[in-house]
């Protein structure tokens, strides 16, 4: 479903070059739950940003369903992010001026169709992540766990096939983390959405069907 070939990402920090990903190749099958782990600076978030088409690799290729999407234009990448992928950020990344409900249905409006339908679906999604009573609250009126669940609902509005989550529980307490992870697993189980999440917490292995371990931008271990 998704594969990368010889993926390399080099960041330039002044005169210093940091090789965040080095010649990485891997493939992710549809319908799985994959956890990308590694120490800080190992390249796990960088990998997720390449897969989520939020950043461009320095070299190598990314394939979605066999199609090379590495060099797509910005517009085409935006379209892919809108229709094919969902992305959940570590810092929740909600729009502060919008309510939970508006945050969720906004990407739907971009796709077209009736706004009313998107609004209705957003209500359903928020109910699904357990926030049916809090749809009119703004992000600052929600707890960290609630904000992350709004972000999950937003990522689902356009029925993505793959959901990328970059350390979705990093800023959450244990209970909230459990709720968020269970929500992701539920989406995988009930809707068949492929989940790829990054974590540095070894305990999170339990949620994954597959574990990719990165070190210095290279894959060093893999567990199934």
């Amino acid at each position, binding site marked *: 479903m998704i594969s990368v070939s010889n993926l390399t990402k080099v960041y330039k920090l002044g005169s210093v070059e940091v090789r965040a990903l080095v010649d990485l190749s891997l493939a992710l099958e549809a319908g799985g739950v994959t956890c990308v782990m590694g120490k800080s600076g190992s390249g796990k978030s960088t990998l997720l940003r390449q897969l989520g088409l939020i*950043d461009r690799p320095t070299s190598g290729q990314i394939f979605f369903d066999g199609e090379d999407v590495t060099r797509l234009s910005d517009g085409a990448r*935006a379209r892919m992010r*809108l229709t094919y992928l969902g992305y959940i950020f570590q810092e929740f990344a909600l*729009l502060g*001026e*919008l309510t939970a409900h508006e945050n969720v249905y906004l*990407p739907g409006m971009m796709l077209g169709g009736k706004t009313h339908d998107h609004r209705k679906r957003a209500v359903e999604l928020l109910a699904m992540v357990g926030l049916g009573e809090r749809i009119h609250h703004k992000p600052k009126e929600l707890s960290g766990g609630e904000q992350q669940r709004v972000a999950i609902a937003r990522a689902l509005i356009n029925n993505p096939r793959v959901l990328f989550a970059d350390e979705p529980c990093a800023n959450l307490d244990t209970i909230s983390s459990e709720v968020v992870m269970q929500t992701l697993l539920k989406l995988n189980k009930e809707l068949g959405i492929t989940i790829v999440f990054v974590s540095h917490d070894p305990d999170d292995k339990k949620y994954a069907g597959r574990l990719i371990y990165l070190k210095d931008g290279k894959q060093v271990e893999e567990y199934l």
Partner: protein
Amino acid sequence: MNSLKVAAFLAFKSLTRGDWRVLLLTISMLILVYLNLVFTPALLAGAVQNINNKTRTTMSADLLFQATGESPVLFQAQELVDAIENVDGVAAVCARNNLGAEIHYESETFATGVYAIDPEKDDQVFQIHEAVIEGEPLEPGDVGQILLGAQVAGAEREDLELYASSLKTVHAGSTVVIDYVNGVEREYTVKGIFFTEFVQSDIRAYITEDDLHTMVPPQLHDTATSIYVKLEKGVDRSQVVNEVLAMRSGLKYQTWEDALGVLKSMTKSFDQIIVILRVTALIVAAITIFIVTYVDLVNKRRQIGIERAIGITSSSIVASYILRAIIYAAFGILAAALIFRYIVVPIEAQHPFHFPFGDVMLAVDVPELVSSAFILCGVAIASAFVPAYQTIRTKIIDAIWSS
């Protein structure tokens, strides 16, 4: 279409949910920018209008005809006046004789032009009679009576621009002596003093042509040094000129613009200053709006990164900022236009700026206000577009994680 819908949604939410103090400050700045854009040009335009109006209504009328050749005198003046009165588009005509003279009062002397007029006809062309501040205007048959400009009489008004060189203490009823350049000396009772608030006009003096007839031989009774023509509104001036010139040879003409003299260069300079002020005000407006948008964008860089990451297109994001700028500009302009029309203009009319050519009112030129509004909107759009476009060119990860 979807892009525009999302842009409108983002702009609306940002305006209604954002910090209202920032919104108020931004609109207030735009109000000031627009007022700055229209106020000084309106004042200068008012000054130009005033100069033009005063020139036409107190000195030159719309057209004036004079004799060519060595003699400055037009003979059979009444016949020419009657003929010009019958030309289509002519509202009124009068003839005047300009006599060089020195006016004496006690130890003061004032050298000026004394005009011999037919008060009835003159009043139809000029508004001097409406500006009488002491005594009475001239009437037909007045002999030995003179109407003096305030700058000539002084009238103990030390605030007058030319008071120092005036007769200083002359009032209606005073007796002055006039030495004409032809050697005739006469005594006159001041019948009235006029004050048009236009220095060039207020340095003149008027007697009746009946008075003139007592000083010159009968063969010079039907003469004029100038014939003044007031036109009806919207008349083709060149057509009137051609018809009058065809009536008699030896005629030359001046338009009121020609008669402006030194004021012409002043009004021309005012027009140039208006253009410079407008351009400057627009640059100030552009920089102001640019700064407001730029600061807003810097603060929302992460938000923009998130919007792009979740699939909102760059064009939607840029359009949302342009829409906001248009809304800011629209509210700012509307509020400023209302303030200008219903507060600034009436207050200025009650407390006008005083110039040597009179009190100047703000000239409200609606097409000018509308064009300024459109230009300001255009500036607002450009000022919002540039920083917004620069921001969406930033990498998404830089926008989100470098903030």
